[in-house]
């Protein structure tokens, strides 16, 4: 199956935040210098204060998830986001559990204080799309505003953002992922080995700016060449779905998979049989950010895109990014030089 519409989609900005660093440059430094002594520790943003990164009014009542979105988005936008509302600028946010800790807290307050006394200003934080809403309000983006959910949500969000640009639904799209993990979720993760991956839980947010052309004052870092997704249900063999995704991504891009030198993966690494049947070279280098960010779930794919786009300024070869959780949506994306 070939894309009906395949115009270019450029990445013209990127910002990220994780316990191991702020911004792609710092993340790259930490990743390059990572040592085994960091291994196995939680990668949570304790005492996170957005004022450390961002001078912006209206952040006080936001949840940690929304605040992290704002910090990463502001970094992607650069130093001078316009206060005017841009009706053709869109937002796509991917998250798996972004509002669940707020939901737990709201539920508890309703029990302890009584449903007639619970603070109504906390209710918006319960709703899943609130993080995208705040990005729209605070940055004046009045175009499409989408929140999608899942372990691969960040990478899928960037893919859907690219589709918005391809279809002409938006002129600029802020797309990425966010994940925070509060005490209840952390306890839940500890009780249920959910992902089949031994990386410690982490928190993070990353956004990239997608545009149909290099912007006059936002040089292009990379191009989204293609992306694809599939789904693996629990207790289903994932290999076939993953092979199909990689083959589909390469087919859509028109690029020979044999020239891919680097794969950034999150979740499970593509198995050797998947690499082989997907046409990847035996010498392909498999890299992951999990070593420095922990398992940031929906943010993982977006963190990888932000870093890969940043590095592509020096390293001009295409990079394949995969987010393959043990079950659920599986997403792969191919980035190329601008």
């Amino acid at each position, binding site marked *: *199956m*070939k894309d009906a519409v395949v115009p270019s989609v450029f990445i013209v900005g990127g910002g990220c935040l994780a316990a191991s660093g702020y911004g792609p440059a710092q993340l790259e430094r930490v990743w390059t210098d990572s040592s085994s002594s960091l291994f196995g520790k939680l990668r949570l943003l304790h005492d996170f204060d957005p004022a450390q990164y961002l001078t912006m009014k209206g952040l006080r009542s936001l949840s940690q998830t929304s605040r992290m979105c704002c910090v990463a988005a502001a970094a992607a936008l650069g130093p001078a986001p316009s206060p005017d509302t841009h009706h053709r600028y869109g937002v796509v946010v991917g998250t798996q559990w972004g509002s669940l800790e707020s939901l737990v807290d709201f539920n508890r307050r309703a029990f302890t204080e009584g449903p007639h006394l619970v603070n109504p200003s906390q209710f918006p934080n319960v709703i899943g799309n609130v993080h995208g809403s705040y990005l729209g309000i605070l940055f004046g983006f009045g175009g499409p505003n989408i929140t999608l959910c899942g372990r691969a949500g960040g990478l899928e969000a960037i893919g859907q953002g690219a589709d918005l640009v391809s279809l002409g639904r938006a002129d600029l799209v802020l797309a990425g992922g966010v994940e925070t993990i509060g005490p209840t979720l952390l306890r839940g993760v500890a009780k249920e080995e959910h992902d089949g991956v031994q990386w410690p839980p982490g928190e993070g947010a990353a956004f990239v700016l997608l545009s149909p052309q290099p912007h006059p004052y936002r040089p292009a870092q990379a191009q989204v060449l293609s992306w694809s997704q599939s789904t693996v249900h629990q207790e289903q063999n994932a290999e076939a779905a993953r092979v199909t995704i990689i083959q589909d991504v390469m087919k859509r891009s028109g690029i020979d998979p044999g020239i891919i030198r680097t794969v950034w993966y999150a979740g499970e690494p593509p198995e050797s049989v998947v690499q082989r049947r997907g046409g990847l070279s035996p010498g392909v280098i498999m890299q992951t950010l999990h070593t420095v960010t922990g398992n940031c779930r929906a943010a993982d794919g977006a963190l990888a895109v932000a870093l890969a786009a940043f590095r592509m300024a020096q390293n001009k070869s295409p990079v394949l990014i995969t987010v393959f959780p043990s079950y659920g*949506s599986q997403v792969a994306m191919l980035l190329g030089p601008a």
Partner: protein
Amino acid sequence: MKGVRARTPVVTGLGIVSPIGSDCTAYWHALMTGTSGVGLVRSFDTSRYSTHIGCEIPRGDYSDRLIVGRLPGRAALLATMAGQQALAQADLPQDVLSSVGTCIGTTMGEACWLESWPEQQVIAGDDALPAEELLRSGPDQVGLDTARLLGLGGPVTSYAAACAAGNYAIGRAADLIRLGRADWLIAGGTDAFSRVAYTGFARLGALAKEACRPFSADRDGLVLGEGAAMLVLESLESAQARAATIYAVVSGFGLSCDAFHIVSPHPEGAGVLRSMQAALKDADLSPDDIDYICAHGTGTVAGDAAEVAAVRQLYGGHRAVPMSSVKALTGHALGASSAMEAVACILALNHQIIPPTWNFGATDSACAWDVVPNKPRPAPLRMILNNANAFGGHNATVIFGHPQIMAEHT
């Protein structure tokens, strides 16, 4: 032909589970006769709330239809029931089910898990909570469980788009077909009756005391509801090749964000207007091509006024296209609502009757428009615009065309 293009997405199956009917026939009959689903809330104690009404699907009404498997949450269960109807109607070949994609929208996900935690356990703190249940509460689990229960193996996308979630899912499914990324999808919205949502809307002063009265001068809020509605979408070429019955064309899709306030709509409906304009542009239609607007029309003072203000601007005062809200009967099923209204739109196209705004009393100058009060209206319907306006200022509009426009096209 306007509203038709290559790989035009068409609807070949629809299903619904709602407080006023758990299939399309019962739902349409209720819309035509004014049968309301509003009643006293039964699923939890409302004695400490200032309002006590809701639109619930009777518990137990569905359990005999459960598919054997790992227990899903109620939102996925409702979506599965609606999906079964839609798939049966579409009569897709068995060998394509493994590639049918799922796009689903929800507001609360599976909040049922958390809401089932006993009060003592919640107050006692994290140590006492079955926290692992929370991992199955997200919207993504709704999509995954629904697809699994329906036996669908294609890509699953789950949207958290509050009260516009159904339209987001349907619009995205249409885009996937246009882009050549999928050949068959099931798309819609679902939400189960939620105590957390009820609490939140109650504290925001958004719940009606006695009834939902969209656009009426005496409206005082929404009535929280629940339900699910799903559509089967495929390309026109695919539907024609297998001689499938086409119920509607998905002619246009538009999205916007108010970028104004987290809970209040833009008072002039600026975001709603942009969403409608984007959908019209997508469909290559003008406002005059629209024969009926299925309004979001929740019955809140600010929301209804903003939507009418947007529609007034769209038409510039030269025409009052009929617009109605079905929420007086169904309540507001949050993420399911716009998908349920999509079913109403498609049934309206096929019956050539506009479902009215029931419970309409006196005209409010802020909502002065032809809202088709209290009586179904036969009308020639070719293009229907379905609005959805969500918490956070998210707006989504889908335009459905009568299947006849394809016959004219071919």
